[in-house]
């Protein structure tokens, strides 16, 4: 059992589960990133797909991060979920393609993932369309 700051315990490994031991170091990395965000307004993105995890470890990581107040569902080139974890500023971003397969999994430490904000180009295109509707 690993006791994290705040008293929340990470879920236990079942006997027979293989541990690469990557979950706790990742959490340390996130802690460092959150500090950087507070002190230097620095954004950090961690690609979860680049870290080898044993079966079940990704779930244990997700359980350790928990869920916060915000859940965003995006449909662009397939569905994506952007979830705030129980630690504000730490977002879990999962991208799927139109067939539902996972094409990207990231942890973003920022105020709000830039991807979700409306992009200038799209706003402009939308304005054009709206003007056409009204004219």
């Amino acid at each position: 059992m690993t006791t994290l700051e705040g008293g929340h315990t990470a879920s236990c490994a079942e006997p027979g589960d293989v541990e690469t031991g990557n979950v706790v170091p990742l959490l340390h990395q996130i802690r460092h990133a959150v500090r950087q965000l507070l002190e230097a307004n620095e954004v950090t993105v961690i690609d979860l797909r680049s870290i080898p995890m044993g079966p079940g470890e990704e779930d244990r990581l997700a359980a350790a991060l928990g869920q916060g107040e915000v859940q965003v569902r995006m449909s662009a080139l397939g569905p994506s979920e952007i979830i705030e974890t129980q630690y504000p500023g730490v977002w879990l971003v999962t991208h799927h393609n139109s067939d539902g397969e996972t094409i990207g999994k990231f942890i973003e430490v920022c105020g709000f993932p830039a991807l979700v904000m409306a992009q200038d180009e799209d706003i402009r295109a939308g304005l054009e369309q709206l003007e056409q509707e009204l004219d």
Partner: protein
Amino acid sequence: MSNDLTIAEALRKRGVSRRGFLKFCAATASMMALPPGMAPVIAEALEKARRPSVIWMSFQECTGCTESLTRSHAPTVEGLIFDTISLDYHHTLQAASGTAAEAAREVAMEENYGNYILVVDGSIPMGNPGYSTIAGISNRDMLMETAAGAAAIVAVGSCAAFGGIPHANPNPTGAVSVSDLIKDKPIINVPGCPPIPVVITGVLTHFLTFGTIPELDHLGRPSTYYGKSIHDRCYRRPFYDKGLFAETFDDEGAKKGWCLYKLGCKGPTTYNACATAKWNEGTSFPIESGHPCLGCSEPDFWDAGGFYQAISTPTGDIGRTAVYAVGAGAAAGLALGALNRAKRDKLAREHEKVTIDDLEKRD
């Protein structure tokens, strides 16, 4: 078949929003094993890159590589193949056939001479070029003709990269790899039997995005994906280090997920991305499913001494050799021993006793 749209424009034309485009770039960076900070760089590159023409040739192959590629579900890869890259010729996937298909290939080659990417899967039989032909043209001729105007060649799969299964003992068709025949064009080897889908598309994407060939290792494989051995990234490594091995496929050790070294795992000598990128986009890979690595991205893995023989074991029948050697040694030893005894007895017989008189005489 004209390609004057940039890749970003092509995506926008398909109705992809900028948000979707950014998502595409983020997933692409992940797929190419680049740090997430590279996503904006990719976005910028795709804004400028033109859609290259890709000609895909399948020679002496099992079509597994094409199957693997069409299973690749990284950023809308079907979109990648059919929209972003203009796949001008792929005789398995395209609708056209016969003379119409060949004509299409020739047009693509002419229009993009010097700039198209040639993707090859399958080995080329040289024993008799007639062993494998398309539309009556031998693989060898088709390769040489098409390679002449290519910017780069991607040899997909162990067959195209190293000769693969046709090349295995006794190689009845005289199969050779692409790099055995083409010496004057840059060749990227993407071996594996089949290669991991995202590796195939990652290489193509690299070329699309940056217009350059990725860094290659001494066997011509992109170091991004083939730079580390399976052993170095295997999640069962702690068991290897502790000496906990599965002895059979269903014993206690196997059920507990122990190291598969004893069952013949070639992980230590195999370079590929299976342990990190995995298969079926991250579901699992052979070792995780309980089967030892075959070493399928290495040259001549079919002849490497047996899939179920550990790397530390001899390939020949050493046990029998040792027994024969002992037998021969026994015979030789007894013979030599007998000779030695005979010599000793002879010397004993011929030994002349020295008496005090002999000594006095010598004074």
